[in-house]
């Protein structure tokens, strides 16, 4: 028993700081000499714990902090370098995290958002799991389900909207069932939302304005509720204004209006155009909802086989449906920035190691004067934390600026960007990252300091690093360089993809064209009136100075929608299943010329293609090649659409392929109908100019107003803008990753350069001796560079190995480049090896110029 008690005291005495440990044991030995029971000895534990804690007293901590501040102030270059590295690393990581926090983590700004579910039809026949919903199917779901509190449907649309006496503007107006706001559970800021009776015509002519539209178009007038406005030329009453935070389902919603539920809708199962969002009952799960709706859909399949064959349902939490494809690239970006932070930490740890090696004498002196190891350890940790807290504070400034600009730049194409801001979660993240960072990079030198051999260090402080510390630094440089290789390879792949996308010829002019969407008013209800308007418009626009061509099309490439239709070829064998589907657009004469789409065979669209003349069609090369592989398509007759009685259309020409879905999509078989034979109301105007397209905007608006002031022109953009908007997400991802890659590389090179410089400085005496004994300066250079490359080459190999494994995760960001593209890998490796060589060569050159005499004398 006495032995046990004594051993216990010996063990807990390890807790007591070194300086007090001997006395602590002596006192407790005395205690045990009087009463050697274990119960007595147990008191040693709180005693030792007290002594241990006392070391962390606030006053002592402040003393450490003051000491650290003095030390750091004495080395401004080192301090600034460390702070800059940390601020950049922590700032970039926090900025990316704040985006992820806003887009992926923060709940949607609706009450109980987890209960909101998006529902689609699942078209199993055509493998389209997220298909818009037919009205009658929606009505079945809404009436028959047992799992949803509310199930609302909506469709987005738009029309000119005008306050009395004001110019009409194009308003994005969401048409929604009357239970839409109840489903979202959002109350209006002013007035009210839809009443149930407003789903029945003619009482449906009411509007709820969005906050943005209320501010910008109605001067934030609180008296707007109750006012009558012109919407699509019909009078509508404004009944409410929604709060700023509510913009569902699209960011630039101007207003919501109730869907008029006509008797025809209750039987409509063939036309699919509704989006559906539901709120689950508090007790229901999404799986129960799935089974529930599937039961209803199965009944409809049996009851309406013509329209509902193999049509099921698809459910997804609303948050997931909104974020969609943004998740992957975002997490990748986070991984990239995390890697950058790691490199930053390693770099700082390295700097600190070099510093601490230089401070070994100081440490040894303090140890000799009675500081215990723990005290030295703590001093270094405090120093690290101080640096990381200051770096983190600076990083927060960078993050705030970065978050703001990211949110602004990406608002148009990343969902929920308006929710991105620095909130408490982001601040907590930044604080945690800073503290962890501080601990990480302070630990290596702090542990090294704990191993201080006082006598050795006091004697030999002038003489370079202990082997272990040098190995540690080598390991850090290895990690850093390998991580940089991974990041730079990733960045290079993304860069190459962007270059590939940007250099694809899309098949149409990407400069010198002005585009604008034309929105006709209700007056244009007959084909002849519509045609006359566009004939007049094109005539006026073509007469404007600087205009070399103009045309209209129903769906602009890249930005516009895309229609498809079944293609039936005259006298061709009937295909077994459904007829093939081809792209289908309506365009006017002059459109091909304005967009510089070449006519390869036959002719393009002409003014002579009028409603009464021969029904014709122009096809693209992809269509001609696929369906007329052995001869010319010109002269053949085809039918578009499902109607077997529709007239045959004669193909009169073949035009070049157009990548309508953007440069990264393959051109699809496509047909163009003359707009005068296939009349669409709203079209997009394309104007080819000799000068800057923007300079024509007011002249084109004037031309429209000259014909009919009730016609609105909106989305007026140059074709560059259209292309830019399409490429913007890819460009942003590229710029960010390239930026991270460049920073990572710079840091890693700084790391290897620092280590080599330090090694050289350490080895000056040795090099001096070598030179004095007749070594060749070239040999010295080779020696030093060889040392550096022995560090760099394994890191390069490891980096490449890791990159081979992880770049496939970045496939979503790549285009026409394999994730293991050998050319990219080789280029990156050779370039990094070259710069690493340069980073080693500079210290090597310094080494070879050492004056042997000075070096030896310095000993």
């Amino acid at each position, binding site marked *: 028993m006495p032995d046990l008690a004594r051993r216990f005291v010996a063990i807990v005495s390890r807790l007591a700081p070194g300086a007090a440990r001997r*006395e602590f044991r*002596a*006192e407790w030995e005395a*205690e045990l000499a009087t*009463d050697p029971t274990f119960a007595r000895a147990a008191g*040693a534990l709180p*005693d030792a*714990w007290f002594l241990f804690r006392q070391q962390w007293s606030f006053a002592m901590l402040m003393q450490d902090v003051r000491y650290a501040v003095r030390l750091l102030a004495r080395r401004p270059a080192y301090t600034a370098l460390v702070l800059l590295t940390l601020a950049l690393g922590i700032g970039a990581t926090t900025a990316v995290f704040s985006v992820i926090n806003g887009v992926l983590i923060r709940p949607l700004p609706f009450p109980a958002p987890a209960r909101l579910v998006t529902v689609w039809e699942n078209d199993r026949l055509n493998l389209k799991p997220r298909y818009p919903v037919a009205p009658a199917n929606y009505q079945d779901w809404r009436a028959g389900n047992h799992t949803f509190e509310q199930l609302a449907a909506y469709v987005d649309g738009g029309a000119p909207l005008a306050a009395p006496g004001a110019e009409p503007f194009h308003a994005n107006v969401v048409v929604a069932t009357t239970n839409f706001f109840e489903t979202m559970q959002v109350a209006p800021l002013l007035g009210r939302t839809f009443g149930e009776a407003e789903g029945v015509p003619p009482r449906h002519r009411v509007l709820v304005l969005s906050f943005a539209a209320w501010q910008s178009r109605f001067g934030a007038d609180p008296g707007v509720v109750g006012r009558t406005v012109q919407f699509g030329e019909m009078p509508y009453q404004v009944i409410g204004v929604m709060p700023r935070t509510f913009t569902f389902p699209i960011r630039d919603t101007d207003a919501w209006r109730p869907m008029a539920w006509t008797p025809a809708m209750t039987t409509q199962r063939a036309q699919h155009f509704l989006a559906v969002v539901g709120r689950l009952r508090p007790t229901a799960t999404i799986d129960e909802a799935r089974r529930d709706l599937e039961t209803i859909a199965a009944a409809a399949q049996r009851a309406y086989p013509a329209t509902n064959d193999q049509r099921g349902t698809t459910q997804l939490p609303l948050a997931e449906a909104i974020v969609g494809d943004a998740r992957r690239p975002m997490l990748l970006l986070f991984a990239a920035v995390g890697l950058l932070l790691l490199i930053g930490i390693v770099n700082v740890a390295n700097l600190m190691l070099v510093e601490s090696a230089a401070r070994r004498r100081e440490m040894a002196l303090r140890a000799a004067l009675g500081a215990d190891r723990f005290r030295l350890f703590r001093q270094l940790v405090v120093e690290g934390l101080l640096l990381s807290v200051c770096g983190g504070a600076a990083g927060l400034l960078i993050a705030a600026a970065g978050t703001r600009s990211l949110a602004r730049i990406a608002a148009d194409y990343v969902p929920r960007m308006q929710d991105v801001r620095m909130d408490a979660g982001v601040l907590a993240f930044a604080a945690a990252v800073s503290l962890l960072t501080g601990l990480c990079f302070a630990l290596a030198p702090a542990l090294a300091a704990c191993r201080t051999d006082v006598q050795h260090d006091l004697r030999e402080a002038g003489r370079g690093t202990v082997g272990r510390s040098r190995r540690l630094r080598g390991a850090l440089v290895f990690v850093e360089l390998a991580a940089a290789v991974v990041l730079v390879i990733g960045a290079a792949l993304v860069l190459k993809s962007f270059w590939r996308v940007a250099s694809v010829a899309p098949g149409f002019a990407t400069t010198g064209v002005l585009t604008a969407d034309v929105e006709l008013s209700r007056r244009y209800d007959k084909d002849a009136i519509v045609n006359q308007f566009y004939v007049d418009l094109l005539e006026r626009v073509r007469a404007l100075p600087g205009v070399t061509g103009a045309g209209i099309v129903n769906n602009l490439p890249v930005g516009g929608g895309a229609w498809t239709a079944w293609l039936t070829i005259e006298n061709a064998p009937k295909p077994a299943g459904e007829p093939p589907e081809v792209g289908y657009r309506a365009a006017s004469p002059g459109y091909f010329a304005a967009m510089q789409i070449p006519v390869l065979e036959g002719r393009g669209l002409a003014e002579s293609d009028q409603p009464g003349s021969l029904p014709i069609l122009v096809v693209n090369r992809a269509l001609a090649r696929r369906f007329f592989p052995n001869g010319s398509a010109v002269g053949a007759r085809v039918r578009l659409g499902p109607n077997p009685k529709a007239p045959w259309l004669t193909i009169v020409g073949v035009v070049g392929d157009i990548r309508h879905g953007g440069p990264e999509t393959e051109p699809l078989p496509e047909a163009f109908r003359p707009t005068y034979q296939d009349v669409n109301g709203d079209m997009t105007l394309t104007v080819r100019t000799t000068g800057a397209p923007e300079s024509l905007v007011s002249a084109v608006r004037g031309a429209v107003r000259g014909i009919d002031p009730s016609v609105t022109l909106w989305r007026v953009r140059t074709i560059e803008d259209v292309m830019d908007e399409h490429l913007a997400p890819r460009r942003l991802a590229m710029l960010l990753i390239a930026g991270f890659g460049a920073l990572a590389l710079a840091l890693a090179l700084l790391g290897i350069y620092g280590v080599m410089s330090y090694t050289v400085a350490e080895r000056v005496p040795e090099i001096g001796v070598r030179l004095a004994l007749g070594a060749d300066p070239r040999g010295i250079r080779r020696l030093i560079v060889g040392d550096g490359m022995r560090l760099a080459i394994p890191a390069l190999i490891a980096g490449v190995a890791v990159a081979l494994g992880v770049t496939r995760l970045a496939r979503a960001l790549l285009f026409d480049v394999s994730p293991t593209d050998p050319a990219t890998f080789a280029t990156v490796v050779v370039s990094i090896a070259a710069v690493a060589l340069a980073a080693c060569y500079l210290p090597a050159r310094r080494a070879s110029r050492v004056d042997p005499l000075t070096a030896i004398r310095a000993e």
Partner: protein
Amino acid sequence: MPYTTYPSTLVLHAIADGVRYGFDIADRTGLQTGTVYPALRRLESLGYVRSSWESERIARREQRPARRYYEITRAGTDALAAGRKRFENLGRLSPGQRHA
């Protein structure tokens, strides 16, 4: 003047009464050693008590390890007076009472 806890005040009281080393203080106050020692450390760091090791010679003669003796300082006496006022029932637990 820093606040002294009830156990610390008891310990101070015992030392003022002439009880001089850890084991004895624990015995006379009835406090656990795990309370007495941290209290002693704290009182010493506050400057209320000071300690000295008895000479090795005495310890050897008595065939036991050397003891650490504590004595109260002037500041400690003031602190004890303030503590007494705060914990008025201190007298009832004064040294020796437990064994009386």
